[in-house]
């Protein structure tokens, strides 16, 4: 035996054994893995396990992946493997309640027709002319279906949430009920100024496609039992009884999404019109927010020098910067929460600040934030504001980061410990509440996020910000079970260099001042030059006096000089960052080799000395 092993034949046996062993482990050992990533990216979360264990009726999942068309796409095949393995893990954990079918929709096959019939999206591949299916369809016993039309690589961090949501939706087949109380004309109606009919807000229309929306009155004294999520938009006229009803609804496990605003620009109500005062446009939730551990001042608006939007002032005019209207970009959007993780850009118009109350038991998770270049201004600064740039002089950021929207979860107590007169005593406490508060209502108005065109009587909407997505995502997330809500988006795939960002911030604030000064000087010089030239007939330019020519020349020279300085300032902006980069490159490339060389030399010298000695 030993002789055979130690021979050419032995080598061949060895090779075959190696292949056989690894092919066998590939088939027989799925899922035996140690997940060392910080956010346990490759492990099913408790929420998902709970959803799977609670399944009462079987669900069929049809996973379509075009094997042939994807032959050369190694990255995609790897991701496919991850999705397939996750689905198998779902199947394994669901104890027979999930039936997974893995299907290869070959071209012109029945399976391909099936994929198309489910509404899955085929991606055309330019090279081979084939199209690629990589999606999932799920059906329940009632033949209702849900699909993920294509697993996009960019959505990898949402994979588990998307799968769990699909299963959770199929497990509870009714459209979720949303109760709506709104203090703004979200349904359209008549414009009080122009007396023209107005269309409903696009955000609300989109919401109605996914949810069953029931309108509730502002003086409602009990939230109906069948409402899963209560949506409050600008609840400024809620009666005490209605507030108490909301309090009890939240404590008994109802989910709440509230949009409040210190200055709702869209508020055309009588109170707001007659008063013309800022607080006429403010809304609040009475004592409720405080009970949930949030301090909110309905008379203060967040302004942010860095996120300020450019707004048009009319034709032919330079757009103005409005530091009360914010463009909140991904760095200020919570990338780990399932509501906000898929969103890139949100706009907020004169929104308020939500501040967690110290010592509160309720967990406060910021969803949208301002930058450190922000401050709070009294809302009446906006009621008579003509030119948004009037806000700029004298603006001083207070280095605080303000939260514009937050998720509140965990234990909470009632805001009415003594109950409300005339109503029977209610719940005092809850172990877990689910509330999302957004301190702005204007973000839901069309003009803040979507362009609507009327095309042959059909309204076509083209969003330029994700505000509508925030509303639908939040309702979607809140209308799911507690278990689904706890499945967070994972994989904070963007881990920026915080040090570099800090450097950039510092450099920007340092140079913004000098840039502004130079810009002003440039504009001044341009103006003087224009004035000087205006009076001149171009044909008589040659007849300028020497003095005039000199003045014009000196202005032109100054213009060139200012432009150069501006370029320098812009160049300087990146100089510190580049310098840090160079230092790190040198340090990493040279330091260890140098130290090693020194150590070797020292060792060698010591050896020599010792030998001589």
């Amino acid at each position, binding site marked *: 035996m030993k002789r055979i092993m130690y021979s050419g034949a032995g080598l061949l046996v060895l090779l075959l054994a190696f292949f056989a062993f690894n092919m066998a482990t590939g088939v027989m050992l799925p899922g035996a*893995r140690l997940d060392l990533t910080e956010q346990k990216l490759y492990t099913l979360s408790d929420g998902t396990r709970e959803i799977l264990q609670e399944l009462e009726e079987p669900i069929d999942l049809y996973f379509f992946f075009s094997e042939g068309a994807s032959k050369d796409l*190694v990255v995609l095949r790897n991701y496919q493997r991850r999705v397939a393995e996750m689905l198998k893990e779902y199947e394994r954990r669901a104890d027979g309640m999930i039936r997974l079918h893995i299907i290869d929709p070959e071209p012109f096959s029945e399976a391909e027709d099936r994929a198309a019939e489910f509404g899955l999206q085929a991606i055309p591949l330019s090279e081979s002319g084939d199209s690629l299916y990589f999606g999932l369809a799920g059906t329940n016993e009632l033949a209702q279906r849900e699909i993920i039309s294509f697993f996009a690589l960019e959505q990898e961090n949402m994979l588990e949430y998307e799968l769990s949501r699909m299963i959770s939706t199929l497990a509870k087949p009714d459209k979720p009920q949303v109760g709506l109380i709104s203090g703004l004309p979200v349904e359209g109606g008549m414009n009080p100024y122009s007396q023209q009919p107005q269309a409903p807000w696009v955000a609300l229309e989109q919401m109605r496609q996914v949810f069953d929306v029931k309108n509730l009155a502002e003086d409602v004294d009990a939230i109906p039992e069948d409402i899963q999520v209560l949506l409050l938009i600008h609840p400024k006229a809620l009666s005490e009884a209605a507030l108490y009803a909301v309090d009890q609804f939240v404590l008994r496990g109802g989910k709440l999404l509230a949009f409040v605003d210190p200055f709702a620009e869209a508020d055309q109500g009588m109170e707001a019109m007659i008063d013309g005062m800022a607080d006429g446009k403010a809304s609040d939730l009475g004592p409720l927010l405080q009970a949930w551990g949030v301090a909110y001042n309905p008379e203060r608006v967040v302004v942010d020098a860095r996120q300020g939007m450019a707004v048009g002032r009319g034709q032919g005019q330079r757009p103005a910067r409005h530091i009360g209207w914010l463009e909140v970009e991904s760095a200020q959007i919570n990338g780990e929460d399932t509501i906000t993780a898929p969103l890139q850009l949100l706009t907020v118009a004169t929104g308020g600040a939500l501040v967690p109350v110290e010592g509160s038991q309720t967990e406060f998770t910021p969803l949208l934030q301002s930058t450190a270049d922000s401050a709070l201004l009294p809302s009446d600064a906006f009621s008579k504001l003509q030119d948004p740039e009037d806000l700029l002089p004298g603006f001083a950021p207070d280095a605080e980061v303000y939260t514009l929207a937050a998720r509140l979860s965990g234990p909470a107590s009632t805001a009415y410990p003594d109950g409300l007169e005339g109503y029977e005593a209610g719940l005092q406490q809850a172990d877990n509440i689910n509330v999302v508060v957004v301190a702005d209502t204007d973000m839901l108005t069309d003009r803040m996020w979507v362009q609507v065109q009327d095309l042959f009587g059909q309204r076509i909407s083209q969003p330029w910000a994700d505000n509508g997505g925030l509303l639908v995502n939040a309702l979607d997330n809140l209308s799911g079970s507690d278990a689904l809500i706890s499945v967070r988006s994972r994989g904070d795939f963007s*881990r920026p260099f915080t040090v570099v960002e800090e450097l950039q911030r510092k450099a920007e604030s340092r140079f913004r001042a000098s840039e502004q000064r130079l810009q002003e000087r440039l504009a001044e010089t341009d103006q003087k030059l224009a004035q000087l030239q205006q009076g001149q007939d171009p044909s008589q330019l040659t007849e300028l006096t020497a003095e005039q020519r000199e003045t014009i020349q000196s202005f032109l020279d100054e213009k060139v000089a200012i432009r150069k300085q501006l370029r320098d300032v812009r160049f300087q902006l990146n100089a510190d960052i580049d310098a840090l980069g160079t230092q790190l490159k040198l340090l990493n*490339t040279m330091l*260890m080799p140098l130290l*090693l060389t020194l150590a070797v030399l020292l060792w060698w010298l010591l050896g020599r000395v010792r030998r001589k000695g």
Partner: protein
Amino acid sequence: MNNLGVIFKRELGGYFATPLAYIFIVIFLVLASVFTFYLGAFYEAGQADLNAFFNFHPWLYLFLIPAVAMRLWAEERKSGTIELLMTLPVSRGAMVVGKFLAAWVFVGIALLLTFPMVLTVNYLGNPDNGAIITGYIGSWLLAGGYLAIGSCMSALTKNQVIAFIVSVVACFVFIVSGVSMVQNLFSGWAPQWVLDTIASFSFLIRFDAISKGVLDLRDLLYFFSLMAVWLFATAIVIDLKKAD
């Protein structure tokens, strides 16, 4: 087992007795850093992870590891010390494993000396250090795979240069089996399971999976079985070539 320890110590000490080892480490450190910062654009990408660093390891090792492995047996054979070794009361397995382990630990030390990269990325942002640790584990396993192949190739010949070249070629085959170019060669006629099997033997795909942050038992078994098989083959080759 005691013999294995003796061989291991002797070999590992041997590395640090010559300046060649230091030169190897310095070249490795400089190249790893240059690849990361210049080819991988680590700083410009602005992301606090070490993907730009680990992505180049398979290619860096492709030339550096065969350079370490080429002298394992070829030198003994050329200088005739292999006969002396054979007369020692040490089993062939212990010799093969001892030499391999010494080389593997030596490469591990070189790898550990890249720790300033970890400090740098932690200074710049908040990386997922779990994924960085598995990246290092994966990289070391990868180096072990290359070394085991190199060890066998070194046993095949007296000429170190030939050992080096053959090792590079063999390792290259294991790298590219997952690359789409190679997959294309088979995709016309071979069934999908063959393609997937070929891809599953790729160093790149296995290493990539580990350096994402997950230690999958299958990936670990792949690397360990690979090392075991090539080391076993080394022992067979030494035996077959005993008479040469």
